[in-house]
């Protein structure tokens, strides 16, 4: 009985308010003139990357003897290679599709690792104030390592590859994420329903899962969506430095690095992957911004 009473006490339990809020959420997101096209574009890119093996007109790793073909819209371009070929004679469109796939995968997995570990740590320190100083001081130490440096160190130990880059990016996202989760969590822990939950004898695990996590998750997700763009950018930078995917695997940052040598003669080789990175990051950032605008209750009032 008491439990239902506390629930009815006007505290924002998202589960109960769900149907109405969700509709509004979608509507205001689609009404946003920047967010809607950005989201559609991002979705198109994700789908294209997902179905790369079906869409790609050529084998991304096969070298043809037609090197440095310009894209179709330039004078000497052909429909055979819509975006032209690189200096090894590989189809840039196919490589960009596969490359986007890998770039997105690196970003998603890294943000997943960083998000799960980081927010767990942050929320735990919000809940148990005794371990808070310990976790946060370690966190501060981790904050002082830039992702690129961490990537370099990991690659030095493990050798270049996609996995060390993902791990480096994941680890690098932990401290930021933990900080955000902690501050959100502390706010939630101050709410009356937590005390009420304790009063009815809920276990720590139940409080963590039912109140703390559910009330913090949307804010954390917003942060992660904003962070996603950054992670992709750093991932591409690491690949650009030759630390990421090993040839012949294509990755957008690596494609840009390889095109650098021929920038004066065949600028499309470096430009196309760079533009794709730019578009992905821009779309991810705009979408993240819009999500924050519609989801963050503090901005609504």
């Amino acid at each position, binding site marked *: 009985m008491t439990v239902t009473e506390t629930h009815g006490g006007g505290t924002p339990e998202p589960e109960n308010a769900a149907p109405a809020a969700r509709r509004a959420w979608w509507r205001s997101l689609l009404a946003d003139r920047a967010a809607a096209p950005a989201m559609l574009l991002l979705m198109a890119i994700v789908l294209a990357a997902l179905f790369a093996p079906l869409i790609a007109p050529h084998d991304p790793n096969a070298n043809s*003897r037609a090197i440095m073909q310009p894209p179709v819209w330039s004078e000497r371009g052909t429909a055979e290679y819509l975006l032209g070929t690189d200096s090894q*004679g590989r189809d840039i469109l196919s490589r960009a599709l596969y490359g986007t796939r890998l770039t997105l995968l690196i970003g998603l997995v890294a943000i997943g690792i960083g998000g799960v570990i980081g927010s767990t740590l942050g929320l735990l320190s919000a809940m148990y104030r005794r371990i808070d100083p310990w976790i946060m001081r370690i966190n501060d130490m981790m904050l002082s390592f830039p992702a690129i440096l961490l990537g370099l160190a990991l690659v030095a130990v493990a050798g270049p590859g996609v996995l060390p880059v993902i791990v480096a990016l994941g680890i690098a996202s932990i401290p930021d994420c933990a900080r955000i989760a902690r501050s959100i969590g502390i706010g939630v822990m101050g709410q009356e329903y937590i005390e009420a939950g304790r009063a009815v004898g809920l276990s720590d695990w139940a409080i963590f899962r039912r109140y703390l996590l559910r009330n913090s998750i949307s804010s954390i997700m917003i942060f992660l969506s904003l962070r996603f763009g950054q992670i992709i950018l750093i991932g591409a930078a690491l690949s650009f430095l030759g630390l990421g995917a090993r040839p012949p695997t294509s990755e957008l940052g690596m494609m840009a690095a390889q095109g650098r040598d021929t920038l004066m003669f065949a600028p499309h080789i470096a430009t196309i992957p760079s533009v794709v990175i730019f578009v992905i990051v821009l779309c991810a950032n705009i979408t993240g911004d819009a999500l924050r605008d519609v989801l963050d209750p503090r901005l609504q009032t």
Partner: protein
Amino acid sequence: MRKSLLYGAVAVALALPASGQEINIVREVDSNNYDPHKSTARSASEVLFMLGDTLVSLEPDMSTITDGLAKEWEVSDDGLTYTFHLKDGIKFCDGREMTAEDVVYSLKRWIDPETNSPVAWRAGEVKDITAPDPKTVKYELKAPFSELLYQLTQSFATVIDKNNVEELGEDFGVTGFNGTGPFCWQEWLPRDRLTMTRHEGYGWGPAFYQNKGPAHMAGITWQIVPEENTRTVALMTNQSQVTQYIPAIALQQIRQAPNLELVRSDAAFWTYFMGFKIDKPSVSDPAVRKALNLAVDQEALARDIMFGEVTPAYSYISENALDWDKTLNDKLLRYDPEEAKRILDEAGWKPGEDGVREKDGVRLAPVAYIQSGSTWQKLAEFVQAELLKVGIGMQIQAFDATVFWGKVATQEFDAFGMSYPYISAGDALNLYFLSQNMPTPNRMNWDDPETDEWLAEGRHATDDATRAAAYAKVLNKVHDAAVWLPLYHEPMTIVQSKELETIVPHNIYGAGLYKGLDLKFRE
């Protein structure tokens, strides 16, 4: 944006000299030091040839030995004693007169175990080096060494000043260098630039130079510009007047540039290849190595990746190099992917699910170590794509120059990418195929008593025919075993400003300008 910033930075950095009789030479990498006995880098040799002199010199044809510090020399009939007679009036940059004792000191330091020089073997099996009088040097060997005079033209045999070495200690070749060359050390800012000024009293240049000294140039700046597009722009905008480090892709454009001239020599003995560790599970099979050689289209590589500026290679040394066995020409492995597949099928390497072949649980996916940087990245990816077409899944691992040399001294890899300068078959074969040179530079683990014996026969030969015959046997054996995959021979290409008189490109150790005595502005 980044580009324009770079060009801007170069413009500022290079704008300083180029007035009067001074030039800027741009190049890709710096050396770790300029001590002739402690660096094998081409970038060290380039500078040392100008700062110092050797007893004998090599003409641009890469085969004629001519005078250097020695005006003449005699070789005893048994090939064991070389007597050099020095020119008169040779002085170090600090003004001190050079004597035979200085030559003895320099050569002895080269072979001294304490110096721990990686190139000590190049001096032969020395019995003793002495100076019977101040103008004579006697070089005595335990066994004849047919390569000796060629080796003595290299920068490793540069004559240095004992006082200078002792005074500077560890900093010799870092903070200073006192030599007898046409130019004198001024300053070195590592990974930025090295400056040198004219040696005013110089007048003992080799006979093949019209100008025996002093040099026409009052000063030379060697500027490091790692980015290849930036180097090209530096030449086009006359911020630099000479370089041999222009990417192949830009050469066509350079030819059309009104202010630039391109000189080229095909007698440059510098070959790019991939070597295989012959005791590793996959590449230990001679059939695999043969198939590797057949699967790669060197002609397409030379045309597409190097823009036709290089010669496709099927042999391990240039076919123009001294002691190349011409009968091998017809036996070299040339592009034939169908034959490669057939050989692999026959040897029992069956394609797996992903197209990469397997045999007895071993995947045909050799790991190749290469030096990071645009050249090897491009070469390795080309080779990788070619090999994949016949079912060989080569994996590439690139390392920065600072760790690469350590990595290729290990036993971790199956293949490696390398390029090297040489002057003759003997020079190349003794470097790479002697069993005592394992694990490096004999990174293939080519451990064959017969080869060692033939190589010794070649080294100890006192006449040309015996030497050529001995090296021919080794050439046949290693080509037959397909220990390497040759890629291309790189010619010496120098791009120069038309303000300068046309340069005769040299090729010694890949140092295109050699002593720099003919560098001169047009009048």
